[in-house]
């Protein structure tokens, strides 16, 4: 099958959905636009709040390992991309990071009105007291006792029913991801959305793809299964950080643009648990309402509240045997936080293709990151004990379960030497970089408007554009950059 469009967008997450939404004026002028999404189109009724059934919202069932196996990446797979299964955290890119990135033309003056508009569109709010559950209340209490600043996390939710299953798809549609906001507007304007459409490679103004049959329980696609060639005057890649770089590598662009796949960061994260003396039922209410940036500047990490379901929690704890049974028997007493490390680009970390042509993330944790993760465990243990927990689980401790009476020995117990790659559970939900913005092809892949150097018909509009870590949860930044990309396309088309 052959098709022709004026503009084709690959991916429907924070980047692709926003580009589509921002290009509606071009659609209204008569241009033909399509969004190609590799994953299925899930309707609200698909989201059953059961973790084993919802694994299919994630690539590799939620555990996509980097090449070394040290980190597993959680990335969404479906219409809405990772906004399907994120918690709705909507931080603005800090000014200090904009300055550090030093991308010509990318300034706070440019970004601020975009953040303002997007926050209105996706309904970003500061959570009300009604949304704060016991875990979050105890977090705030612990931070205050330690003298740490506690801040509310900006969230994009509307009429939230506080059922607590945000990471398994929002069945009520309260979470204002691209599935709820940008994509419905784009579709209503006449932009085509093609789900289950796997893009195999690109050539000059052409997308080579394969449409798969819609999996059971998902929305049927409008194109029949089979190979398809789509010609387009403009192609926008928004397939996510490993996905976009991988597609360019598969398509042979590396010979023209040596930085493809380089300059990646992952925000290595650990989910940590403390056992409170009585039930706190973290799995009802909104999971994430507070964070502290006490150690952002000094040690490079945030501590955010969190919540995960039973099976995923066992992955984070790194326990087994009697310790696991003991802790899981108190599942409804668990305090939970997420530590989010602000890693930085390293020459050896990059997106590559293996011998079979499969996309892989080659990433090794540095000594600096491991030390930072250990520092974060010590501070989180202090926080849990201040909040009233009787024991804590710290994977980098000589003995991972630490009782309250040992709280003065935390620095002796938790040490980098106890970090064993793969055994110590580290995850990532924020892959960034691989097609960095910059001045020229020697040090970047695109210009500051996401236009690929020397290929004026090709754009990137996702977290691949980040030249270094965003330090904060990246979705709002991805949307703002995607809006800039759409501006440049509109200028070209007019």
């Amino acid at each position, binding site marked *: 099958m052959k098709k022709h469009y004026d503009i084709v967008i690959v991916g429907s997450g924070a980047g692709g959905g926003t580009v589509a939404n921002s290009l509606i004026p071009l659609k209204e002028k008569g241009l033909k636009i399509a969004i190609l999404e590799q994953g299925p189109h899930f309707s609200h009724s698909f989201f059953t709040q059961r973790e084993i059934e919802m694994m299919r919202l994630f690539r590799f069932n939620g555990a996509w390992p980097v090449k070394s196996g040290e980190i597993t990446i959680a990335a969404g797979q479906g219409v809405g991309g990772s906004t399907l299964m994120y918690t709705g955290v909507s931080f603005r890119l800090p000014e200090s990071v904009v300055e550090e990135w030093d991308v010509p033309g990318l300034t706070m003056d440019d970004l601020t009105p975009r953040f303002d508009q997007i926050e209105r569109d996706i309904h970003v709010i500061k959570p009300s007291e009604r949304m704060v559950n016991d875990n979050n209340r105890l977090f705030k209490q612990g931070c205050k006792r330690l003298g740490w600043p506690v801040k509310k996390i900006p969230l994009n939710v509307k009429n939230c029913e506080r059922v607590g299953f945000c990471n398994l798809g929002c069945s009520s549609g309260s979470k204002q991801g691209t599935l709820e906001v940008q994509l419905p507007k784009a579709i209503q304007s006449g932009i085509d959305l093609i789900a289950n459409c796997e893009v195999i490679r690109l050539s000059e103004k052409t997308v080579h793809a394969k449409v798969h049959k819609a999996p059971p*329980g998902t929305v049927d696609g409008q194109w029949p299964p089979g190979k398809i060639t789509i010609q387009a005057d403009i192609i926008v890649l928004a397939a996510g950080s490993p996905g976009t770089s991988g597609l360019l590598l598969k398509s042979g662009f590396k010979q023209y643009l040596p930085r493809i796949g380089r300059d990646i960061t992952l925000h290595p994260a650990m989910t940590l648990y403390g056992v409170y003396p009585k039930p706190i039922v973290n*799995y009802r209410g909104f999971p994430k309402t507070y964070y502290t940036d006490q150690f952002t500047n000094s040690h490079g990490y945030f501590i955010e509240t969190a919540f995960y379901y039973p099976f995923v929690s066992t992955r984070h704890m790194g326990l087994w045997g009697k310790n696991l049974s003991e802790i899981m028997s108190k599942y409804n007493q668990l305090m939970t936080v997420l530590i989010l490390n602000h890693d930085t680009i390293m020459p050896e970390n990059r997106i590559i293709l293996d011998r079979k042509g499969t996309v892989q993330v080659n990433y090794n944790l540095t000594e600096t990151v491991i030390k930072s993760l250990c520092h974060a465990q010590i501070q989180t243990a202090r926080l849990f004990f201040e909040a009233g927990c009787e024991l804590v689980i710290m994977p980098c401790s000589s003995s991972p379960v630490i009782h309250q009476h040992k709280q003065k020995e935390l620095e002796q117990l938790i040490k980098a030497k106890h970090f064993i790659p793969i055994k110590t559970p580290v995850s990532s939900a924020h892959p960034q970089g691989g097609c960095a913005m910059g001045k020229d092809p020697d040090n970047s892949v695109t210009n500051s408007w996401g236009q690929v150097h020397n290929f004026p018909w090709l754009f990137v509009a996702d977290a691949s554009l980040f030249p270094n870590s965003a330090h904060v949860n990246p979705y709002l930044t991805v949307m703002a950059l995607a809006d800039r990309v759409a501006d440049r396309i509109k200028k070209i088309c007019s």
Partner: protein
Amino acid sequence: MYNCKYIKGHRLKTIRAAANCIIPEHAGLSSGGTLETAAVVDWAIDQMPKELRVQFLLFISIVNASGIFFGGRPFHRLSYQDQIRQLKWMESSPLAPFRLGFMGLKNYICMGYFTREQNWSDIKYQGPILYDQPSPDDIIRKLCQGKIGIRS
């Protein structure tokens, strides 16, 4: 009736023995080494990409055969203490493939145990609010609810 495709014979014995070590009967939790746990693992293996499935099944066989170094017999016939000793070695092995394999084995066993409703009351988990929302996959729903017979 759910017929296990992959977890049978020595693999079933290995998974059940490993699950008894990973999730022992303790603190009010029942032991993990049941046919019900193994059946959910079997379903999950069926969802894997073929290449990963082959690697994982091979690893289960390696676990069983490696028992010879920890007590002179296959893993499932080792004493409980020797089984623990072998798993601890794999978890912290200097060889990354063993650490990766152990993490995979542990994670699939925990999936097979903690996603089954029968065990939720032991951990005081109330489960989904939309309890009766129809499943996109009837088999796994029935396996997790204990509403289907299992044959291995």
